[in-house]
């Protein structure tokens, strides 16, 4: 059982470095977002910023890849995304087709490169 839980110190770190830094933004959104009207102009701006920050997170994973993804060369990561996006558009916005195509491009090229 102690293997399952590990040490309490690590769980404390999880709380401080993982849970609180996340929840603070959600609860702030709950607190401030309570009064905004659906369809208001402010909400269009807020949604545009949320979309753009998410785009930044996507770009960060591609430009500064974590862990094992760093073993895939940059040009290959970008071509996989471009190919996936092309298929996504051609298939009338199928997320599944886009993701599968992007993964196939990356895996097959990586395998072919050795």
């Amino acid at each position, binding site marked *: 059982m102690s293997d399952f839980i590990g040490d309490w110190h690590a769980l404390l770190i999880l709380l401080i*470095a993982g849970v609180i830094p*996340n929840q603070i933004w959600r609860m702030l959104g709950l607190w401030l977002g309570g009064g905004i009207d659906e369809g208001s102009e402010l909400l269009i*701006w807020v949604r*545009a910023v949320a979309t753009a920050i998410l785009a*930044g997170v996507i770009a*960060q994973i591609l430009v500064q890849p974590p862990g094992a993804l760093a073993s895939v060369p940059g040009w290959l990561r970008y071509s996989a995304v471009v190919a996936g996006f092309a298929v996504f558009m051609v298939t009338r916005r199928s997320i599944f087709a886009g993701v599968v195509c992007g993964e196939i491009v990356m895996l097959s090229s990586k395998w072919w490169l050795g």
Partner: protein
Amino acid sequence: MRSVASTVLTLVLFATYLGIGALAHDTHFSLAWALASTAFVWAGPAQIILISTLGSGATVVQAAIAVTVSAIRLFPMVVSVLPMMRTPQTKRRHLVLVAHLTAVTLWVECFRFLPHVPRERRIAFIHGLGGGLVSVCLVATTIGYALAANLSQLFAAAILMLTPLAFLFSTARNCRELADGVALALGLALFPLAAMLNSGIDILVSGVSAGTIAYGVHRWRAGP
């Protein structure tokens, strides 16, 4: 529950959390730790960032800053999701769990599913959908943790690649207004520029400027 099963994003989440479970195992965190991070952090990129920064020997404060910068997006997401399910009778405490469950997948699915759900049932719908997604991910975290030793480098790279692909396409499909599309494209393009500043809050810089420009384009197109 049908909604949980019918979304491709659930599959992507499952695979992503396999990867997070494996990452936690390789960085010598306990299974309970990994499960607690899935249940209480509930944001894939934040968990990947948390585990990899702590694993690389960063201090708790450094890890907390890296995580909180990636989590800023949750703020506008919560703000934009909540008005969709509020009724005049809704108290703020009814929305606490919805706010906790809000992450990219749920945010995207809200815009897809909620228009078909009667307003007074939307909170219950989100509790069901979000709870289902969390359960799926807890299972995936456990399996990933158990399998970690057998994962190849290539497979691990493929799992990490799922996040940008799925986030990009699901956000792109949700772009209904011009402002959303412009924000997505500009947000991608501006991040590498903002990263050159190396400010530690690059994503915030590129996100707020790209979002504001996109809103400006929306206003300009809408006319005076």
